[in-house]
């Protein structure tokens, strides 16, 4: 009966034994007071472990997690809008340059009579862009744009840093 070790008793408790082993342990428990005592104590441990209640975090835990998740979504949304704004600005600048280049090509060609009105319009528009992107204006325009980009980038970074700090406390 002494060959009924703790491992076998534990497996018996978990119903993790073969039929033969199960019968052997069952007989041992019935016939040996020592094995019976060990098994009963183990069963008591099992019952106590089963009855231990779970513990809870603070009452507003779920609210706090959801608040953090919302804050993260707001930051992500702002980042998305900022990137879209930068992309829009880049597209606008590229379009302006393409338009200017297109005007230069058209103005170098001989106008056909039927498209004279269109050519005049494009010429006027071209002149406007030509003045706007003239050497002096282009420098000012580029500087202002870079300045705006830098400032907006800084404020976005600063705001996000502040938001993260607020919600980590």
């Amino acid at each position, binding site marked *: 009966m002494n060959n009924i070790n703790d491992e076998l008793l534990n497996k018996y408790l978990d119903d993790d034994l073969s039929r033969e082993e199960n019968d052997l342990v069952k007989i041992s428990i019935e016939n040996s007071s020592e094995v019976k005592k060990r098994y009963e104590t183990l069963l008591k*441990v099992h019952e106590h472990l089963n009855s*231990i209640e779970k513990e809870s975090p603070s009452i507003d835990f*779920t609210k706090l997690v959801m608040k953090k998740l919302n804050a993260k979504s707001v930051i992500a949304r702002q980042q998305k809008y900022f990137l879209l704004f930068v992309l829009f600005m880049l597209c606008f600048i590229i379009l302006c340059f393409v338009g200017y280049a297109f005007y230069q090509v058209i103005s170098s060609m001989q106008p056909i009579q039927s498209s004279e009105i269109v050519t005049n319009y494009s010429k006027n528009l071209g002149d406007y862009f030509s003045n706007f992107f003239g050497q002096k204006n282009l420098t000012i325009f580029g500087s202002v744009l870079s300045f705006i980009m830098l400032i907006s980038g800084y404020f976005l970074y600063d705001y996000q840093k502040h938001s993260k700090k607020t919600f980590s406390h």
Partner: protein
Amino acid sequence: MMMKNLTDVEIIESVKKGNQADYAVLIDRYKNKAFTMLKRMLKNDFDAEEVLMDCFLKAYNNLSTFKFESKFSTWFYRIVYNSALTKLSSAKRKIENEMSSVDDLHFLQSSYNADDLVKEDLSLLVKKIVNELPLKNAAVITMFYLEEMRTEEIADILQISVSNVKVILYRSRNLLREIIEKRNLFQEVI
């Protein structure tokens, strides 16, 4: 009311569709069990709550990578267990953790004298010892009894073999059995 009856998979699908608020149902479903496990592993309420919050945020951010190949609970408890390990990775705690290794649980038995054992209520004594178990033992006991997980599932979470899980479980139970036997003996003597 209706949300609470939904399965984890249904809630996750709803969250993935953009219903962020539904994630609160999952938080309510797992917060107490995960908190109990973390508290037993970290031995500290404050750390347990902080790590649990990180776990829920991590799980939410990685929900898109969750492919329903395993149960959400298995996936989530793996995050919880690994986060607890990361928290404990500071040098001092690592040493403490190594000192109270899985193989040597007898330091716990010797920390209770006859007076403590006899005076203490048995349920409270068991609870006290469980709260003092080393990291892996605490995790296994919590998942086995509180989560009613199978040993295969626990092995999957802890990334160890099923036989190792059983060894940890049996050793923890045997330690408690020996302490109770010791208590009974002292009670008989008194």
